[in-house]
């Protein structure tokens, strides 16, 4: 019985190991060749947003303009216990704008904006 229990634990560890090593924010940048700043921003987005919902929900958001992400993230930031501070919200916006609109989207946000 004890052997079976340890075998179960070993199986779970092995399965977990199969999923290790992939940067958590990669789902938001795949195929985009992001600069290091955006990689970090998307890692932050993956850590914060996945508290309440799967990260992939971000891929399905219907956002028509880079500036829309600002209000979108701000609304999410104010959900109860979101854990997203205002500076972090600005960083997450940069990840999502890059994901949706590429480098051109980021430049359209302008200097000093999120």
């Amino acid at each position, binding site marked *: 019985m004890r052997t079976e229990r340890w075998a179960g634990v070993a199986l*779970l560890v092995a*399965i*977990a*190991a*199969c*999923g290790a090593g*992939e940067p*958590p924010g990669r789902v938001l940048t795949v195929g985009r060749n992001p600069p290091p700043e955006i990689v970090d921003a998307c890692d932050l987005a993956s*850590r914060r947003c*996945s*508290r*309440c*919902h*799967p*990260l*992939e*929900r971000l*891929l*399905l*958001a*219907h*956002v*028509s303009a880079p500036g*829309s992400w*600002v*209000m*979108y993230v*701000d*609304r999410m930031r*104010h*959900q*109860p*216990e*979101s*854990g997203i*501070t*205002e500076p972090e919200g600005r960083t997450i916006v940069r990840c999502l704008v890059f994901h949706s609109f590429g480098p051109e989207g980021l430049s359209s946000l302008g200097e000093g904006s999120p």
Partner: protein
Amino acid sequence: MKRLAWLGAAALAATAAAGADELQRNFAGSIQADYMAVPTEDVARKIAFDGATIELSMKLAIDFGPNTSANVKVCYACHGFEVGMAFFDIRVADQLNFRVGRFSPSFGEFPLRHDPANHRTSDKPLPYDMGRMLRYQEWNEGVLPAPWVDNGLEISGTQYFRKLTQLDYAVYAIMGPKANAGALDFDFVQSHTPYYLDNNSRPTVGGRLAFTLGLGESSTASLGASGMYGTYDPDNKLHFLIGGADLVLRLETVFLRAEYLIRRTQFDLGASPQTTFRYGPGPDGKYDDYFVKDGFYTELEFPAGNFDFVARWDGLRRKGNVPISSPLRSESIVLRYTGALTYRVWQALRIKLSGEFYDFSDFPDEAVIHLGLAGPF
């Protein structure tokens, strides 16, 4: 209170000044199609809503500007179409947010991720069960079915400290649960069906306080406490009090969650309790006019590639007198053991598979298998 009203008015004025060109509309939704089999029963419909169920939600979020938004959400599930959200959010600061309309008041941790596309098991933990547990009629569902949707006002906010450490609060006044005069427990059907009106002219009040401690870059430990108090009958004679405590430990992508809910519900003894209730009076010759229902769940959730695994242990207990017709006793318990996995088929579309074992104190033990498909759009 006047100052709060002025702050809210100022935020609205600022939003109006932002101009109509900032209006943004976002549509989102989710679907879960689930099949629940009870291999230990020939005809499980007698004790459960088994078979296929669909849970659909469609939400429209409108950002009027940086400080104000509206959310409207329509849900379709076992009850048919219902309005799950219809509220305005007015954000004055991180520490002060007003939510007015129809919403789920802040209570506990699970309701934050009650959407089937946001949690990994097919069903909800027993304290939050809304009719998918076995023997839901005998138990009258969980302690506080989720999502609890109600009309009212909530004031909430967050104070951030150093990285990832924060204190969240929420206080609210809502219509509250309902039942007829002379009730013995909440009537959950009446509580979510028309008329969407307060049945007793008294608000139910509640609140929540949660502290999150940052542990490194992406690990946190959160401790929360919630409470709700009011009357639920039309005559304001029957009081209830619900308390809750929750602990969430997040280590990178691994979650360990534990919650405990307890509800003390007063009931109407009527003119002749000896003909209504199974058990007689206590040593003092008096009948208790309340029962206590509590429940817990603890679960471990961890991802592995396209898989997510969940191990959950949850339970319910009811202590107190019961109607003569009830199969429950003065103290009844159900414990449930769940093993679940999800597989991400595409983006956030997931296959959900889980097995559950029910250990009842008053009924034969049962097994359940869930197979479902869930995802947002």
